[in-house]
């Protein structure tokens, strides 16, 4: 593209006011220069940007490309790069004005004292440009820039003329111009383009670059920020090519032959390997171990101190209780005993004794001695002792005793039940222990097979659960979505012919029968309590929540997952896997390598330019660029077939999009398919596809008869819009 910073030209004043300025106003690039020169002086991207300057707060305008580092001074978030074009027609004349300002300024017009741009202007436009756009452009040039006269021409025709003068093509031929947003096929007869035969299809370089950018961003979402428009253009320019035969090229890549490997190109993004963690040195390790030891020791000391404190407390309490007991024993008179009791706060001797036994037990536990199971005795005591009344038959008891008996029966059954439950739990524990030991044994003797079995079981279980969940969510999604989407329409999903599963059918049945039958009489729905149970049946949201019972499959899955976590180094948990899939990142149990930072262009190299030949790939149902030539020919029915043959021998491919390698060969195959068998066909690329349009226009503007083709403000005002619509320059100006 040339240097980013464009120097302002200094020789503006050296050109007389009769020298026209030539502007190639292209969809991607704006080129401006003097007539008669071989190269445009100034070229830049035909876009403008209006960011807000951070420090002053004012909105400024920037045109074309600039050093990206300077944009940090501007707030670039609220605005974007805008083009004056919509498809290939200029519609936004404010931006057009900014672009022209910049172009003229860099050409040196700011140094002139004239107060206007005092040179005739030759500007390019697309063929059959709508008159509104043309009129607005003429207005802009006349009224704002004070231009004396203006001429409009088609860039493809200028390119053809230039190549014709070089002898590349003949007087009759085709100009196939692959532009930014569009491609035109323009028949040229006797040196003049025939608009009635031209054909435009709405694919161009922009679509190829955009397709490449999107496809790469979707394939490598992790690197999406690095895949900018500029980078995509660079990749396209350097690595894309047109496949001579698309299906066979696809096959090469599908079979992954060696040829495919060679054709792949890898773009290595900048990547810094993470710094190696230094292994801590010996002394580091020793120091850390010592610190840990000390901490452990401190904790142990604290625990020991607490324990001894507790023991002394308990001993004291025990001592107090023992003295109390001995006092009570010594006391002979009951009054003394009761007074002692009252003072101590215990109600009876039994209480003191029980407290005593309790304290001595805890003391023993604290000291680490096995607790004497005094409680057990009460349990294992024969039930007859505890529940004396149970064994006595009913007739022999008084009503009070009967009540007592009932209570004892109840207590007995509950305690027996508790015992039984405990036994069962102990049994289960033993069984599980035995199973674990068996599994351990199996694992140790054949680790590989064991892992395989585990993995298979895991997969099976997870699939089962997934399927069940999917069925449920599908059903839910269908039912709920339809319900909310259709409002009162009860029939929901059936309208679309979707197959309802059993649950949904049941729901439908309930809804239709319960709520909507009873044509005669009143609606008696809510009168019976059972009716409201319908809601419970119908509501599918409560399905899972009501289940307090843990799904046995899921429990099994958890167990297997835990085992796999332990033994299998490459296992990735299901929850983790789901998380990963949702963020589209590759699983990272291993460290990042250089390969993760590579973007591979394999199929994309020729897939993206294929858009030009098959616009259906991006959803444009139009003809490809090889087909539009045949459409052009069909639009010229009055032409003799010999003339058509002659024209097909002189097809020029021009425009920026034609720089793709392999394009001409593919075009030839494509166009030959539409022409009669063995009719002559010759396709040539323009000498300089990008610059020839400007060069042709420059040569044209430099010719003496150029001034006969321009129109001035007076002409414009006098002759009106109709005339402007029919205005077309004559391209063959012969001196």
């Amino acid at each position, binding site marked *: 593209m040339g240097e980013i910073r464009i120097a302002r030209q200094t020789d503006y004043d050296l050109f007389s006011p009769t020298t026209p300025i030539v502007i190639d106003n292209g969809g991607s690039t704006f080129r401006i220069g003097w007539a008669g020169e071989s190269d445009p002086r100034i070229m830049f991207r035909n876009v403008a940007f209006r960011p807000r300057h951070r420090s002053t707060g004012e909105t400024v305008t920037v045109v074309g490309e600039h050093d990206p580092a300077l944009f940090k001074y501007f707030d670039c978030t609220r605005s974007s790069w805008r083009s004056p074009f919509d498809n290939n027609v200029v*519609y936004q004349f404010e931006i057009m004005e*900014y672009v022209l300002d910049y172009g003229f300024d860099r050409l040196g017009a700011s140094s002139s004292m004239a107060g206007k741009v005092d040179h005739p202007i030759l500007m390019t436009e697309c063929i*059959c440009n709508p008159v509104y756009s043309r009129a607005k452009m003429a207005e802009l040039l006349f009224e*704002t*820039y004070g231009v004396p006269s203006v001429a409009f021409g088609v860039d493809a025709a200028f390119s053809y003329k230039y190549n014709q003068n070089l002898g590349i093509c003949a007087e009759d031929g085709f100009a196939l111009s692959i532009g930014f947003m569009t491609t035109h096929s323009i028949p040229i007869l006797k040196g003049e383009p025939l608009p009635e035969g031209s054909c*435009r299809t709405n694919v161009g370089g922009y679509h190829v670059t955009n397709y490449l950018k999107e496809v790469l961003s979707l394939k490598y979402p992790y690197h999406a920020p690095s895949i900018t428009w500029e980078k995509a253009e660079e990749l396209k320019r350097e690595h894309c090519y047109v496949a001579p035969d698309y299906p066979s090229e696809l096959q090469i890549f599908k079979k992954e032959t060696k040829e495919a490997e060679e054709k792949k190109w890898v773009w290595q993004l900048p990547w810094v390997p993470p710094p190696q963690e230094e292994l801590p040195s010996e002394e580091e390790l020793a120091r850390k171990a010592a610190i840990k030891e000390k901490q452990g020791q401190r904790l142990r000391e604290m625990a020991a101190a607490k324990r001894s404190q507790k023991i002394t407390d308990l001993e004291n309490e025990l001592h107090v209780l023992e003295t109390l007991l001995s006092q009570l024993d010594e006391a002979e008179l009951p009054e003394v005993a009761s007074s002692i009791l009252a003072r101590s706060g215990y109600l009876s001797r039994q209480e003191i004794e029980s407290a005593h036994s309790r304290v001595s037990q805890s003391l023993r536990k604290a000291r680490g001695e096995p607790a004497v199971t005094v409680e057990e005795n009460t349990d294992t005591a024969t039930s007859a002792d505890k529940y004396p009344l149970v064994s006595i038959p009913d007739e022999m008891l008084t009503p009070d005793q009967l009540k007592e008996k009932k209570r004892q029966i109840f207590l007995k059954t509950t305690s027996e039940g508790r015992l039984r439950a405990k036994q069962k739990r102990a049994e289960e524990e033993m069984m599980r222990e035995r199973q674990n030991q068996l599994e351990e044994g199996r694992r140790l003797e054949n680790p590989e097979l064991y892992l395989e079995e585990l993995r298979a079981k895991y997969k099976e279980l997870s699939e089962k659960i997934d399927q069940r969940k999917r069925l449920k969510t599908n059903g839910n999604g269908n039912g709920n979505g339809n319900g909310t989407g259709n409002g009162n329409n009860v029939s929901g999903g059936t309208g679309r012919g979707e197959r309802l599963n059993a649950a949904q059918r049941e729901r439908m049945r309930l809804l239709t029968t319960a709520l909507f039958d009873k044509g005669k009489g009143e609606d008696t729905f809510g009168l019976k309590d059972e009716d409201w149970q319908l809601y419970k049946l119908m509501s599918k949201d409560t399905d899972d929540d009501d289940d307090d019972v843990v799904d046995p499959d899921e429990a099994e899955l958890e167990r297997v997952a835990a085992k796999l976590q332990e033994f299998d180094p490459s296992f990735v948990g299901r929850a983790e896997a789901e998380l990963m899939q949702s963020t589209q990142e590759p699983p990272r149990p291993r460290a990042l390598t250089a390969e993760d930072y590579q973007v591979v262009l394999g199929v994309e190299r020729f897939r993206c330019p294929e858009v030009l030949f098959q616009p*259906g790939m*991006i959803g444009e149902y139009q*003809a490809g660029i090889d087909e539009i030539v045949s459409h052009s020919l069909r639009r010229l029915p009055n032409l003799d077939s010999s003339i058509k043959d002659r024209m097909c021998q002189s097809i020029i491919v021009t425009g920026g999009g034609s720089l793709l390698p392999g394009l001409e060969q593919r075009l030839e195959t494509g166009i030959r398919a539409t022409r009669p068998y063995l009719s002559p066909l010759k396709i040539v690329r323009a000498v300089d596809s990008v610059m020839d349009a400007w060069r042709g226009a420059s040569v044209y503007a430099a010719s003496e008869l150029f001034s006969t083709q321009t129109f001035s403000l007076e002409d414009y005002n006098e002759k009106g819009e109709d005339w402007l619509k029919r205005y077309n320059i004559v391209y063959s100006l012969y001196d």
Partner: protein
Amino acid sequence: MEADVVRSEMVLPPVMPFKRVQMGDKYQKGQSRGRYWKHLKQLLQAENFISLPLDEPNYLNIESPPSMYPSKKYCDITGFEAPYVDPRTKLRYADPEVFKRVRNLPNEHVQRYLALRNAAVIIR
């Protein structure tokens, strides 16, 4: 303005000596200028091509007709030929491995793939 911004001259000066009317006078500050310009669609509607004689070429006349070749279906993800379509997402895919990838795509990516093919349903 910062020194290097001034030096690079990237910002357009508000006054250009070769212009008769300056931008500041033409476009008052604070007015929304975007809606002022007619987009191509509106331009073409205003042109009223139907009233014009049919054989004269105009912008719409020269548009290409649909392709005479039937459009081939290519896989949205890999680019190979795609005989199959995923009924849930309507993406085209080439073989079962690609199908797995299709099913695992987040919804945003699905919509972008469809938009690339101009097949996304836009709900406004």
